[in-house]
């Protein structure tokens, strides 16, 4: 049932990403939350969706560029997250898993666009209005099917990949409660290699992503100053709240 629900959600998100509406419920932040709610853990979905959002933030659908399908990554990560411990390593692993699917989804877009090009009618047909109507609707239908199929594959692979990582005997493992699965109790555990590796990988990617967005917003001393002011404010807000 979950797989069916997530497949339909995947089809809707695929359409929203480009073909229909573009209300941006397909952004990882929202897609992850929606998928998380579908599997009974919206907070985990929000956590992995927010993390993926930071990774793909500079990727925008400009022109014909091939971009990672963030919605698919968030959906995959949200499907995997409840099967993993609610820790930095667990959430990070789900995000890495989702990132793979986001990149796979991006590879499928050129195929869809090639089909769209073939579907569209050429000038000179007797009823081009009917042909255009039909071809555009078929293109939308194909995008929905693409999204639904990819979502189903991602969810099925989440179960297969995480079954070894999940706590033996059940969903996830013990986790220290905190914000977005990041525990708030310092010093209660030893640094594990897996935690460090996951954190390093994601920190590097998120940092480069943030730097790219910063560069695009203007390479000025003022931008750099505001960035540092914001960083101080954000950190203080976390410590104070």
């Amino acid at each position, binding site marked *: 049932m979950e797989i069916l629900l997530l497949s339909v959600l995947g089809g809707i998100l695929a359409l929203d990403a480009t073909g229909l509406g573009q209300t941006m419920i397909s952004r990882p932040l929202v897609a992850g939350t929606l998928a998380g709610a579908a599997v009974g853990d919206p907070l985990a979905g929000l956590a992995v969706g927010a993390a993926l959002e930071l990774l793909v933030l500079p990727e925008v659908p400009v022109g014909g560029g091939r971009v990672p399908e963030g919605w698919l990554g968030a959906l995959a990560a949200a499907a995997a997250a409840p099967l993993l411990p609610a820790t930095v390593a667990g959430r990070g692993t789900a995000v890495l898993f989702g990132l793979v699917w986001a990149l796979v989804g991006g590879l499928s877009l050129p195929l869809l666009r090639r089909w769209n090009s073939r579907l569209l009618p050429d000038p000179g047909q007797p009823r081009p209005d009917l042909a255009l109507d039909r071809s555009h609707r078929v293109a939308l239908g194909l995008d929905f099917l693409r999204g639904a199929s990819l979502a189903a594959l991602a969810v099925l692979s989440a179960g297969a990949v995480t079954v070894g990582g999940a706590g033996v005997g059940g969903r996830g493992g013990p986790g220290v409660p905190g914000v977005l699965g990041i525990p708030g109790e310092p010093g209660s555990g030893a640094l594990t290699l897996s935690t460090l590796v996951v954190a390093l990988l994601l920190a590097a990617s998120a940092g480069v992503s943030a730097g790219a967005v910063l560069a695009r917003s203007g390479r000025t001393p003022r931008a750099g100053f505001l960035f540092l002011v914001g*960083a101080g404010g954000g950190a203080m807000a976390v410590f104070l709240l």
Partner: protein
Amino acid sequence: MSRPTKVPGAGRTFLRSLAIQGSWNERTMLGGGFGFSLLPILRRRFAGDPEALREAVDRHLGHFNAHPYLASLALGAVGRMEAEGAAPEDVRRFKKALRSPLGALGDRLVWAGVLPLTLLLGVLAALLGASPLAATLLFLVPYNAVHLVLRIWGFRAGLRSGREVVVDLRNARLGERAERVRRWLPLVLGAVGGAAAARLLIADAVSWAPVVLGGLAVGAGYLWGRPLLRPLLGGTALAGIVLILLGALP
């Protein structure tokens, strides 16, 4: 503001414009979607004259590209021109002239401005402990307010002004608005980075190393941007999947 000229089929054209990118492809880009959206207006305009309808649809099967939200401005204007019987060559030249400004303005205002800004607000809210509903709405509501205003304003302006819509576009000063939005990006981006770093530092069993590496990576991304990000994401994903399959994660 005067009411737009009543063009039969305009309402359905606007609704169809929400799917304007449905058949996006490298050859005609938004062209198929533009023609698809315009069909209700064309069918009403050329009702009873199948040959004229055929010619009208044919001239809207070609290449067109613009930001999807601002394409509604071109749709409204072309719809008005077709309804008034403008010469085909005039319509063709008008569409070609609008392509670049509607693309560039939309990219700067929306993709490089409003979208990342509102997304970062949502992510920041999540990092500060907001509920999933609150964090997502903090992004979706302001973003879609701008989104819908652009679509509706553009379409109405096009219907009202026809080929003179470039005046409306100029008066809207979208370029200046884009700059005003983007000025806030560094501040909010920094707040997200600081909050994320703080979360990691007070977390259980996370060392300083990721935070330091993240800071250095911001510098690298600032210098080299997206060309660095793509291979890095690929490498990160590959490393992650290898580690997962080897049982090293989580």
